[in-house]
């Protein structure tokens, strides 16, 4: 405790400000060339029990910054030999005139703005073990303001976590999120991925942090449970389970991990439920009327059922636009053809969004309601799904995966920048994330076969 207090005092003496409220978002680009701002964050060091955790910390910070797509992370190989660890190490003012022999020292903030680093921002800090906790001191500096160190400091914060790998990773996420918040990037902290895994020998519903840590088994049914979706408040998960003979919808609280009541229609199949953006309705596919599976809307407990359409063909996977609350995308086999993606606006005739070729499936709205991500075999053999994004108004397409196995079930993170999806190379499917431009692909799961992921917002 004494150590912590004195550390805060020292920090205070050098202009540490508790970041009660984040500053205004930093808009636009620094270089004016349409490039992303560049940030340099040298490896943080620590002593004692915190030292072995710093590799995980540094790697997580780098990965979060790079994966955000908002900033360019300057390669560490370009950094000066000497690295400031705290504000007292830094020297303000313009660098002395360069001479051919001069080697940037690294302590002068302006050094980080010059070639070869050429960064716009600098993150510095260090870790420590205090009271059996992992403590991290982190600062962010605007190099363009290097003439005045006080003005250049954007924030300085103390973070604490458990004194283990997981604690260091969580602290790294928080520090990276505080940096990214300055650039308008919404934090993914607290968001989780809900998915189906057969690692116990049966397909059960599991959850994990969005970075793949903290995997937890939600169901223990010993049957098939799949197709999860999460309510907009992050509190409930709905899925389809064979627990009670035919496939039925079940809803669980993610807070208590207990089943919530849901009235299933008498049908050979009720499946693939999703929530309306206001959480007041659910929409799903059912054979309640006999014949092929059709779309229904109901109250969150399954009451107040209303049929949405009567197509005479299979209709499934309905998803309500999170912004308009009315437009519904879904998959249909109408027209006697392969499954395709359709858009149905309230009162209107459904229109086909995909061009009729291949199998198109798994539509998911972007958080801003302008795009859908989906899986399509267009141009490939049946079963060779790739992830595509379509701008729903212009129908402009972007293909995010290619020649990397079978890719399915894309859903968006609340930041609108990340996508989680299932990728199958060989026998088992695994959960991956990527940016919505197809870059920064990262594997999250490794045990068993893992399918039908959905990105769950942080519980409110």
């Amino acid at each position: 405790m004494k150590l912590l207090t004195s550390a805060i005092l020292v920090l205070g003496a050098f202009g540490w400000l508790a970041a009660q409220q984040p500053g205004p978002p930093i808009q636009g680009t620094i270089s004016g060339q349409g490039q992303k701002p560049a940030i340099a964050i040298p490896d943080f060091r620590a002593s004692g029990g915190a030292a072995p955790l710093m590799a995980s910390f540094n790697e997580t910070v780098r990965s979060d910054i790079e994966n955000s797509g908002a900033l360019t992370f300057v390669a560490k190989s370009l950094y000066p030999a000497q690295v400031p660890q705290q504000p007292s190490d830094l020297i303000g003012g313009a660098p002395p005139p360069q001479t051919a022999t001069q080697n940037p020292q690294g302590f002068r903030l302006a050094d980080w703005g010059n070639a070869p680093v050429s960064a716009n921002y600098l993150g510095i800090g260090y870790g420590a073990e205090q009271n059996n906790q992992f403590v991290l001191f982190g600062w962010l500096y605007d190099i363009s303001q290097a003439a005045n160190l006080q003005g250049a400091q954007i924030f300085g914060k103390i973070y604490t976590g458990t004194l283990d790998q997981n604690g260091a990773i969580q602290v790294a996420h928080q520090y990276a999120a505080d940096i990214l918040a300055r650039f308008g990037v919404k934090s993914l902290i607290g968001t989780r991925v809900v998915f189906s895994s057969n690692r116990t020998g049966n397909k059960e519903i599991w959850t994990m942090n969005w970075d793949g840590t903290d995997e937890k088994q939600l169901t223990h049914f010993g049957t098939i449970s799949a197709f999860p979706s999460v309510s907009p408040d992050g509190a409930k998960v709905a899925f389809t389970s064979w627990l009670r003979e035919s496939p039925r919808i079940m809803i669980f609280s993610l807070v208590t991990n207990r089943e919530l009541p849901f009235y299933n229609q008498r049908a050979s199949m009720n499946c693939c439920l999703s929530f309306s953006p206001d959480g007041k309705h659910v929409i799903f596919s059912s054979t309640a009327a006999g014949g092929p599976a059709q779309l229904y809307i109901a109250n969150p407990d399954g009451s107040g059922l209303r049929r949405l359409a009567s197509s005479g063909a299979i209709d499934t996977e309905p998803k309500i636009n999170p912004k308009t609350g009315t437009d519904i995308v879904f998959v249909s086999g109408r027209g006697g053809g392969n499954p395709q993606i359709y858009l149905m606006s309230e009162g209107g005739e459904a229109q086909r969004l995909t061009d009729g070729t291949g199998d198109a499936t798994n539509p998911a709205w972007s958080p801003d309601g302008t795009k859908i991500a989906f899986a399509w075999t267009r141009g490939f053999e049946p079963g060779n799904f790739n992830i595509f994004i379509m701008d729903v108004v212009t129908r402009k397409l972007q293909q995010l995966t290619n020649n990397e196995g079978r890719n399915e079930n894309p859903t968006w993170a609340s930041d609108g920048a990340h996508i989680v999806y299932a990728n199958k190379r060989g026998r088992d499917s695994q959960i991956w994330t990527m940016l919505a431009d197809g870059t920064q692909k990262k594997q999250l799961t490794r045990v068993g076969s893992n399918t039908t992921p959905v990105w769950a917002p942080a519980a409110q």
Partner: protein
Amino acid sequence: MTKRNATLVLAAAAMMTLAACHKKPVAQTPPPPPPPPPAQVEKPAINFFNAEPSSIDKGQGSSLRWSVTNATNISLDQGIGQVSPNGRRTVYPGETTTYTLTVSNEGGESATATATVTVNTPPPVEQPAPQPVQSAADMLAGQVKDIYFDYDKDDIREDQQATLQGNATALKQIFAAHPDFTVVVEGNCDERGSAEYNLALGDRRASKAKEALVSLGVPADKMRTISYGKERPVCTDQSEDCYQRNRHDHFAAAQ
């Protein structure tokens, strides 16, 4: 000087005398070569003669291989006839057959060897002792067959109609013998479509078969449908053969 050298000198002198003469000498007939030794006719030998494999199932082939030396006449029986000294011949005997290789030389000496190809015939199917009343589950397993579908389709194919008819007959017998018995029609799909769409497609496949069976007189209230989509594959190879096996309706006893 030895006697032999003296003879040579004399001969050389005689030749020189002859060469000096302008008259062409009369060619002297050389002595005939010694008669060849009487031809040593070696015995014909069969180095090897075998059948590979020596045991086959009916319809399969076996390779006869042989090597023979010192033979002028080489033949195989069983209607094969003359063959070369080193050879190979694939045979497809319908039953266990012994092949004889006969070789002989001009001297009339001969040798034979045999190779037997054993043909395994499937053992006769043992007929279980007829039971007075077969259990419903046994009848279902023995008489009601899976129905197969095309990719992304739920209609009963032409080549599945006979199976469906047979199933209808069998199911009616089963339900007549076991009034309390009920059946679950399980619809399944191959792994290529999406899991969500396949769940609905498997439901259609089960429903279509149930509807067709009802139209053939099977009581509707004895059959329930369930879709497993692509969740319960019977095989996991990525081949059309496996895909086809997974695109099926299976008939199971209701629990």
